[in-house]
């Protein structure tokens, strides 16, 4: 059972959920390239400019760990990365759990993504000067020490350490992506977990994903916010367990 974190965090975000599955599953948590303790040198600007690159990483990782017929749990942007990985290597995952997924954040002709382009630009702007808090973002750019990451170690916020430059590019990749067409043709069973109040992935988006994934269930949580795995881990675990006990496992 592979847990993939979303934008803004690292594998720490699964710390309240993953342990619940250890009894029955071999659980795998990992950091995307550029996040947490990943090897920053493995980042390739061209390849990681689209979610395909991250999906390739997932496939390589799972093959390396001999994952076959497993469960993929992806939060936010990683939900879509899981969809892409499952299509590239269908043998890897029997089931996909998509927590707060969105195939397209921008509103489009007749499609509700939740954001206008101007709002996304504003967001990317904010991230430029505010990534992981003022000190981490502003101090290096004012002091001109962007090339000395060790100065960032002395920060009050010790979780979810990420490389600021890669994070900014990841944000761009994430919020400008359009993977709606990739929802078609997914063979694995899918669970769409939808938070009841989520500014990033509104209800309409969850419904859209569920509608376009052929073999999917939708679980609407009482929890609010974009990170039910953190704010409501119990409810999230329960939803996943219910899904995994579902019809196919008989």
């Amino acid at each position, binding site marked *: 059972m592979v847990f993939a974190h979303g934008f803004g965090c690292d594998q720490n975000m699964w710390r309240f959920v993953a342990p619940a599955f250890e009894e029955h599953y071999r659980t795998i948590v990992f950091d995307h390239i550029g996040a947490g303790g990943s090897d920053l040198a493995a980042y390739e600007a061209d390849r990681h400019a689209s979610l395909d690159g991250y999906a390739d990483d997932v496939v390589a990782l799972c093959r390396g760990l001999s994952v076959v017929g497993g469960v993929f749990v992806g939060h936010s942007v990683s939900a879509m990365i899981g969809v892409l990985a499952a299509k590239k290597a269908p043998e890897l995952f029997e089931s996909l759990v998509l927590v707060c997924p969105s195939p397209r954040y921008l509103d489009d002709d007749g499609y509700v993504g939740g954001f206008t382009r101007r709002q996304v630009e504003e967001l990317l702007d904010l991230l430029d000067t505010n990534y992981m808090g003022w000190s981490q973002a502003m101090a290096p750019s004012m002091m*001109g020490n962007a090339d000395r990451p060790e100065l960032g170690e002395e920060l009050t916020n010790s979780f979810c350490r990420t490389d600021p430059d890669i994070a900014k590019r990841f944000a761009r990749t994430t919020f400008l992506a359009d993977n709606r067409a990739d929802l078609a043709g997914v063979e694995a069973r899918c669970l769409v977990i939808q938070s009841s109040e989520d500014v990033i992935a509104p209800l309409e988006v969850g419904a859209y994903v569920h509608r376009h994934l052929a073999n999917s269930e939708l679980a609407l949580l009482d929890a609010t916010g974009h990170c039910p795995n953190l*704010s409501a881990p119990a409810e999230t675990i329960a939803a996943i367990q219910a899904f995994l006990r579902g019809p196919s496992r008989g």
Partner: protein
Amino acid sequence: MDETPATLPVPDVDDLEDLFENAPCGYASALPNGRISKVNRTLSTWLGHPAKDLVGSRFLDLLNIAGKVYYETHFAPMLRMQGYFDEVALDLVRADGTTLPVLVNAVVRKDEAGGVRFIRITVFNASDRRRYEREMLEARRVSEQATVALLELNLTLEARVADRARALDRAWRLSPDLLAIADAQGTLLAVNAAWTDLLGWEAADLVGQGFAEFTHPDDLEPTRAALGRIMTTPLVEPYEYRLRHIDGTYRLFAWTGAFEDGQIYATGRHTTVEHEQAAALVQAEEALRQSQKLEAVGQLTGGVAHDFNNLLTIIRSSVDFLRRPDLPEDRRTRYMDAVSDTVDRAAKLTGQLLAFARRQALKPEMFEVGERLRGVADMLDTVTGARIRVTTEIPDEPCFVMADVSQFETALVNMAVNARDAMNGEGTLTLRVNHTGNLPPIRGHAAAPGLFACVSLTDTGSGIAADQVARIFEPFFTTKEVGKGTGLGLSQVFGFTKQSGGDVEVESEPGRGTTFRLYLPKIIGDACELPAVLRDDKSFPSGEGQCVLIVEDNVEVGRFATQILEDIGYRTTWAANAEEALEKLGADGAGFDVVFSDVVMPGMGGIALAKTLQRRLPNLPILLTSGYSHVLAQDGLHGFELLHKPYSADQLGRILGKVVPRSRN
């Protein structure tokens, strides 16, 4: 009542309330579900919302859209995971829609069981700080731009320096002149490619070597001296010396340069070709002079031929008379004298003509003007013809000048020819020598100080029109018909006087005549320094019975010479050639006092004979005679006395008197 001052007072509730409500930062408390339970007055005032309206809403609701996303993706997760999240820069949206830049700190308060009791949120107004940040960032951006601009400027400057360096390098490589950098000792440090082109040496052959290695040995000392001077004074006036080509020959270079920053920078222009051109120019001038002279010779020849016919007529008729058997003795003597005089005149004419036509380089020598003028007056007479009277006015006091004699005579002939044509063959030509003292202003040239002799020729001809006076000295200027003159004559006169340091002036009055004045620098000296000139002294010493060996292949001339010498008191023996003469002289000279030999003879000839005798009998005087002056001019006289044919008894007697010892004792 008895509380001690050391005891802290219990905080007043009103005081705490005031601190909470009116603190300089905003406070908000949120329940575990994220809903705000309490805000202070400061925050509600900043946002423009009454505190009661804020209670129940979520902190997220106070943010703009970007803030909301950030809150969901970063703020909330961090708060959940680590229990606090500090220094988040966000914009809060006020009631009126404007935004308030803030810094937010949040901390989770838990109960003893670890459950979340509430979330404490502290909000700092960051309006000034954000503006300050923007200014800082802008200043930093400007500074970075300036750095980039400076970097680009540096690159541009480097590129310009590189361009300049390339241009200098190109100039260095492409210069047709030798360029060299040397140290103070003259050791070459750098040379350009011209060295290879002009001298064949590669840079590797030259660099590290002293200049002396390649300098002509004869130029070494002056070149060292020039090198010494350059250390203190830039060499502006080119200094020339010879450098050795790789093939061993030498080339001339004219150097300029300077000593700067401990090194000598020098440029050498190849001047061998210039010198060759200058030599070619000298040759061309030489050829011009020769053609000018030949023109004069041509003019002379006509006159001389005419005179010769007259002279031959006199001789012919005298001989005819002398053949008469009944001719009285006094008439015979008169005709004989006439023949003799006429031959003298003819010989003098041909001699002058030959000397005149001889090709020779310009060779200034000191001579007496009056004497030379007198010498050529006869010749000028033949040029001008019978109906023009040539008169000379020469002062008794000698007047010496330094000039080329041949050119001087040529100039006189040219002016005489010019006068003859101007007088249309009839009139008077007057030659004068004046001691004028100095050079008057001529043709715009200022008067020159110093002593000058003036030789003038005045004719009584048609004169020269004023508009042509300025042009008459131009080469090839002529007013004569085609075939009558080349126009080189007066240009020779001009060239000669200028080359001699003098000038020529022309004064003309149409219808009255023309005067040419040659000004030549005078030499103040003693006439005694001049070579002795044979005077027409009628008396000469007779022989005293000394023994003369005559060597002559021509029977008539040999017999003639024998007769003359015996008439004037010598004893003679005649040998028909040089070999026979040597035989007669034997090893000891056989008692002969002098040898009188023709030059051009079958066999070893006169010169070889004279040389042999000079070696074998060094005390025996030798007198040579020849009519072929060119042979002697070509081979040289080798120091022997020469008597030109035809010679008179007087001349032979005089010269023998000079070379033969008066007494055998």
